[in-house]
């Protein structure tokens, strides 16, 4: 009996290690020192009304230590609005928003991360990087998605990670080690589903060029398409500060 328990424990530990390994591999394969793209964001509400915005995105650093600037470029009414994100290895990210017409930056509080990202179906938390060390993982099994073999993994935020989701289900494509779908839950209720598609190999990295987010409660969708995507481009740390945002006006 004791042997059986010991065997079960060892198997469970190994299993957990395997799952973590999958996520680490996803992280390793997508590792880059920097990134830049232009994105088109379409919010489709429950009455199928569509609003479109465009932004540029720049990142420096990688998982857990990266800094990113997201800046809206269209339409004219929102041009210049920017979001500065400092991802942290051991806790949730720090985020600031810059409003050029007011010449003001505002810090986005931890408590506000669950709110919608400027009327889209993303929340501010969804813009953070999911560092492997901030979650505990459990392999739920294998489940194909869109005809592709995938691992279905449950991730639960650790105590140090403040999250609106009690747990998430993550689908990882077995052939390319890339996330294809993430479902965020609050207890047993689905809050948000993010689907990744239009995979393309850019600088040897399989990259999804289309994200679709569904807000389960509101029944609205947001589709984001990436263009002009580049990795490992020359960037400077000083471009990722509040001062640089202010200067850029």
């Amino acid at each position, binding site marked *: 009996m004791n042997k059986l328990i010991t065997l079960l424990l060892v198997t469970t530990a190994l299993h957990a290690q395997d799952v973590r390994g999958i996520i680490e591999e996803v992280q390793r394969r997508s590792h880059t020192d920097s990134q830049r793209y232009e994105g088109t964001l379409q919010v489709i509400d429950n009455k199928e009304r569509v609003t479109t915005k465009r932004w540029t995105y720049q990142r420096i650093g990688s998982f857990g230590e990266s800094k990113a600037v997201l800046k809206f470029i269209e339409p004219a009414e929102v041009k210049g*609005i920017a979001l500065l994100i400092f991802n942290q290895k051991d806790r949730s990210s720090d985020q600031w928003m810059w409003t050029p017409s*007011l010449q003001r930056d*505002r810090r986005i*509080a*931890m408590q*506000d991360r*669950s*709110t919608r990202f400027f*009327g889209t179906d993303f929340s501010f938390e969804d813009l953070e990087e999911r560092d492997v060390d901030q979650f505990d993982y459990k392999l739920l099994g294998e489940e194909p998605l869109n005809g592709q073999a995938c691992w279905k993994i449950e991730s639960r935020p650790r105590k140090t990670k403040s999250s609106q989701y009690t747990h998430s289900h993550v689908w990882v494509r077995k052939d390319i080690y890339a996330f294809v779908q993430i479902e965020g839950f609050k207890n047993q209720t689905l809050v948000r589903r993010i689907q990744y598609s239009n995979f393309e190999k850019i600088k040897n990295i399989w990259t999804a060029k289309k994200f679709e987010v569904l807000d389960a409660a509101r029944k609205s969708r947001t589709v984001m398409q990436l263009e002009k995507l580049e990795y490992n481009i020359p960037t400077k740390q000083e471009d990722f500060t509040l001062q640089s945002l202010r200067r850029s006006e």
Partner: protein
Amino acid sequence: MILLRLLTLPYARKHLLRTLLTLTGIVLGVAVFVGMHTANQNVTQAFRRTVDRIAGTAQLQISAGETGFPEDVLEKVQANPNVSAAAPVIEAVLDTGVSGQGSLLILGVDMLGDRSLREYEVEGSNEDAIDDPLVFLAQPDSIMLSETYATRNNINRNTAITLNTMQGPKQFKVRGIMKTSGLASAFGGNVAVMDIYAAQLVFGKGRTFDRIDVGVKAGIEPDTTRKELESALGPGYQVEAPSTRAGHFDLITKGLATTINISSLFALLIGVFIIYNSFSIAITQRRAEIGILRAIGASERQVLWLFVGESAVAGVIGSAIGIAMGLLLARGVAPVLSEMVRQLYSSHQVVDDVVASPELIAIAMAIGVAASLVGGFLPARNAARVDPVKALQKGRYQIMSEGENRARSIAAVTLIAIAAACLWLGTSNNMFYAGYATVIASLVLLSPALAQFLAKAIRPLWKLLRPVEGVLAADSLIQAPRRTSATVSALMLSLALAVGFSGIAGAIHSSVLTWMDTTLNPDLFITPTQTITNRDFRFPAELEQQIAAIPGVAEAQPVRSSRMMIKGVPALGIAVPIAAVNRRIKPAVVEGNLEEMIRLGSEGKGIIISDSLANIRNIHKGEVVELDSPGGRISLPVLGTTVDFSDQQGSFLIEKTLYEKYWQDTSVNVFRVYLKPGASTEAVKENILAQLGRNRRMFVFTNASLREFILTATAQWFGLTYVQLAVALLVAVLGIVNTLTVSISDRRRELGILQAVGGLRGQVRRTIWLEAVAIGLIGLILGLAMGAVTLYYNVDMLRRDMAGLRLEYQYPFTFAIALFPVILGCAFLASIWPAETAVRRSLVESLEYE
């Protein structure tokens, strides 16, 4: 019950007008009670509702008085692990300039996190309140209106509205409509939301917030988090539940509530006398009926219960009508009261609908019935004691026994002794009010004896005026004091109250005038608001130099006033450059040495408090008070006391540089501007507006216009005086009509004989007219005398309990003299109808017994 149906109902039907007059006493008292209390309750509830609806699901609110606090406090609050949401707020009221729409409550919130605490959409609705949240945040002209306000004014999404901001009139684009529930239904639905950082610009609040609304994580006791936040933020911050914030409102309107209670009490007391009077008439007229009842075997108890029952029924009917009229009265009074409270206290509330609480209606009904029973009991007891034989005789009935008169006088003298003891020995408020009540009771008890004395005193005068009719009229009063005592008492009470209010109004008026002459002497006042008491908008400090540079301006003094907590209660802190201001004014010193006060005050070594604050909070020179500021707690000694009417809750002067240091606030509410000799006030005013007011919200008051504004604000006491005077006139007319009806009925035989022996109709008329005028005169003399007493108590009440104002006792002689023609005229008018009834009565009927 059978007796009521068989005897009372036919009598009531036959004398419908008199029955209505009987009810009037109760209706009057109950209507004033319900009306004033309902209005007050509704204004208070409107404030609570506004606080609740704006607070949303916030369990705690953090503020630092009216001054606001720096933005970085938000991060300290958000850092508390038990805080689930912390949303900064700026709250202010803007005049919309739209006719009939009044003010718009603007809530500046951070739309990123605010939805954790406040709902802008209706639950379950698929419609977003805001079309595009990013555009709303990106554009500082974004505004979200409540659906109620938008519908009322035909405003749709994406239309522009103009608001008068700190940068002058500015157009805002409606980028959202809130459904009418929760937040959107606050302030009568006149609610708008804008981004908090845009609101900072609009209201000139710099980088400060007014408040932070806090949600606490599930399972955590809000009080625990409150204590943690208090300890983290320091003593300058108030962390409290929204309901506690509403409690401050009760505190600041306490004075108003006391006035309302006293007015209601007097109204009810007057009602009791009208009932007493009316029942006395009824019993006089039904004396024969009572005699027959007794003769056929009805017991004293049955007769007593018949009339007590009548008074109870009259109480119920009168109270019901009084409650209905009170609700109508409240509808008229509530908006006035709301506006008065808003002007005086800068509190934001709109009375949506006037509703009386079931408790208040029950209390009003109970009070009305009780007052009716009290007023009806004595006549009922007298009716029960009627000797059946005497009852069936014709003659005089209303003669008060010597014993009864003596007992009243002894009781009155005893009460006066108690009142004097309360006055001299007691310092507590309970003792003071007990003394007030006792002295009123004693004067009421003494009124029949005094009325008789005065009737005797005026007899020679009446004889001089009309030898026959004058003597008959005066004798009628002398011989039957009970007949007139109720009317005289009611008139005395209502006139006393009117005199009391008038005296207070006059004293406030003259004190405020003196204060304005000595202290409020700048040529111009520049403010960002239409009302100088509204502190929602502020100027930047640098405007001082720009004003000083305008040709003709000799000096511009910045004033930053805000309500601050002193000894746990709010008072108006006025931050000024003390030395500069005092070079121009001559404040009346109550305590302390002015030179020393100015020297130490300008060095930031203490505060100078108003006499009213000293009285309300019992603070005196030398006492060290603690002021909690965002920069920490400061202990400052009171350097002295001066007369200052800036605020009804009391005020204090603090050196502006000290205030700026601790409150981290350099903004200005008002600039006091002195002109160079020979400079034209109007020309400089126009120049200031032209040069500085174009792109800025700015109002320039001349000294005269500000005085007018302040005197209007103090006119509430004059308003109360006129209301009370109207009540007094009504009482005079009703009471005299009733009394004369009894008198004529009582003196049927006497008047009949007068006519039989050749007396002319004109003589009968004049007899009754003179009797009426005599009643009016006696009531007036006693009222003016009692007014002297009530004024004494009112002056002290104002000092002790309401506003801490130390007013001089100034008897309103002009008002008193003006009352003579008014009251005597009313008395005469009231006598016309009874006199005509008397002269048209059949002589045979009048002398049938003979």
